[in-house]
């Protein structure tokens, strides 16, 4: 029995190896892979109490609209959000892996994983999923939002497909629609002031409008007309959903204007 003592030291990937559990996204892809579902526009911006994440609900496969109620903003744990653009299959599996990895570390080591530790774990997952991404199959781009309790502020991190991590001062966006609206973020910051000074409602209004602009320039982005986008925040109190009524009222005003 004592020789079964865990040797993983809280490393979830090692644990899975020891248990013989396969993680498909870490394995080289089959050359005949099909075109899978893709998620498109996700946005993260700071506001005065933390970080707001917002995403349309459309998933596409080639030129087919695959699903109109996709969730692209997910909880990594009670203090961390991840917004995903790119291959749905890979991203979901990666998120599942990360969720378990954080919980496993905290429970097995009896201490929480640090924010830095969580961010590196995201990098490791991306770099291990790289072989697939290189063949054009299963690449995805995450934006990680967290509330830094030491600095008492929300923080936004984005990654490239190889796992390099960058921190953003104000906003982050990923997906095909995001490329088309980058300049608009800059315009908002320069004309209306930084996002991190905005109240939640104001930040919501700006980002919903950005999403609608992205949708008008990118067929793969669902926008705000037909399906209500998904919005979540992370603040000192943790992760929470923006209530549907608030989103609906802003949606109405924007579409009327």
């Amino acid at each position, binding site marked *: 029995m*004592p020789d079964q*003592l*865990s040797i993983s030291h809280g490393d979830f990937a090692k644990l899975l190896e020891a248990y013989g559990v396969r993680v498909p996204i870490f394995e080289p892809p089959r050359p005949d892979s099909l075109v899978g579902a893709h998620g498109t526009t996700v946005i993260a911006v700071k506001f005065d109490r933390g970080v707001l994440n917002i995403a349309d609900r459309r998933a596409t496969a080639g030129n087919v609209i695959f699903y109109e109620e996709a969730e692209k903003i997910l909880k990594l744990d009670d203090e961390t959000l991840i917004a995903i653009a790119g291959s749905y299959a890979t991203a979901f599996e990666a998120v599942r*892996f990360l969720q378990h990895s954080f*919980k*496993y570390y905290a*429970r*097995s080591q*009896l201490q929480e994983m640090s924010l830095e530790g969580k961010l590196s774990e995201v990098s490791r997952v991306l770099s291990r999923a790289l072989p697939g991404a290189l063949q054009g199959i299963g690449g995805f781009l995450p934006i990680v939002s967290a509330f830094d309790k030491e600095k008492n502020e929300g923080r936004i991190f984005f990654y490239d497909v190889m796992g390099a991590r960058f921190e953003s001062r104000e906003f982050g966006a990923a997906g095909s629609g995001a490329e088309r609206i980058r300049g608009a973020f800059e315009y908002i910051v320069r004309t209306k002031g930084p996002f991190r000074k905005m109240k939640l409602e104001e930040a919501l209004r700006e980002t919903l409008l950005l999403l609608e602009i992205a949708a008008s320039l990118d067929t793969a982005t669902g926008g705000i007309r037909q399906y209500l986008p998904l919005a979540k925040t992370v603040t000192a109190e*943790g992760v929470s959903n923006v209530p549907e009524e608030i989103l609906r009222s802003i949606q109405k005003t924007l579409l009327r204007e």
Partner: protein
Amino acid sequence: MAFTPYDWQQTLRQKADYVEDRLREGSPVVGLSCHEGVLLVTVRRAQQQKIFEIYDKLAFAGLGNQADLETIRQIAVDFAHAEGFARSPQDVSIQRVVGVALSPAMKRSFSDPLRLPLVVRGLFAQVGDSPERDLFYLLNYDGEFSLGYHFGVAAGTESAREAMERVLSGLSKKMPKRDAALETALEAWAVGRREASSESETDWRAVLAEALKTGIVEAALLERSSPRERRFRFLSEDELRPLLPR
């Protein structure tokens, strides 16, 4: 080295005696269903954690050798997370963790004459959608386990366990709120402590007050419904203070 059947039986008996001897003085642990979830309560020395989160709906508490508790805990955490990822979190059940992952391995280890026995008696708890679905598994050092509803107890001696169960069975049918459950759990703990140490003190509050001169109350709640991913949390000093003897 050769073993005759006689040696083998003798070894097991000696091992059991060795373990029982060491468990006798251990601080008991109490598990109790309440409206808000499942409570786990014990009194411990300041540096020794005795209650642990295992998985989303699973917790573990026990008495015995700290290193052996740690062994059991790690096997349970490893198994639960590997399974939870490979299948789904809903497939990680107390029955699989205790009955499949732990019990046979502990039995093998116990009956191996060349190994030191684990000095541990553990209580696993699983919170359900409703209090009737809460489950408690008592896991013994020899790998034997038993299932209980509404409450569970792990104590140093059989008589302490029985005395504690008598206290708990009075309350558990009424499905108490958290604070009422916590008070009963503390009473059960004190009754178990008194039984094991054959103290003459009759008031359970006095037994508890005496124990708190050198120890502290450790209490955790596995919440029945929570917007948070992690339902397990320790109760804070502020939450405990009103219920403790001054």
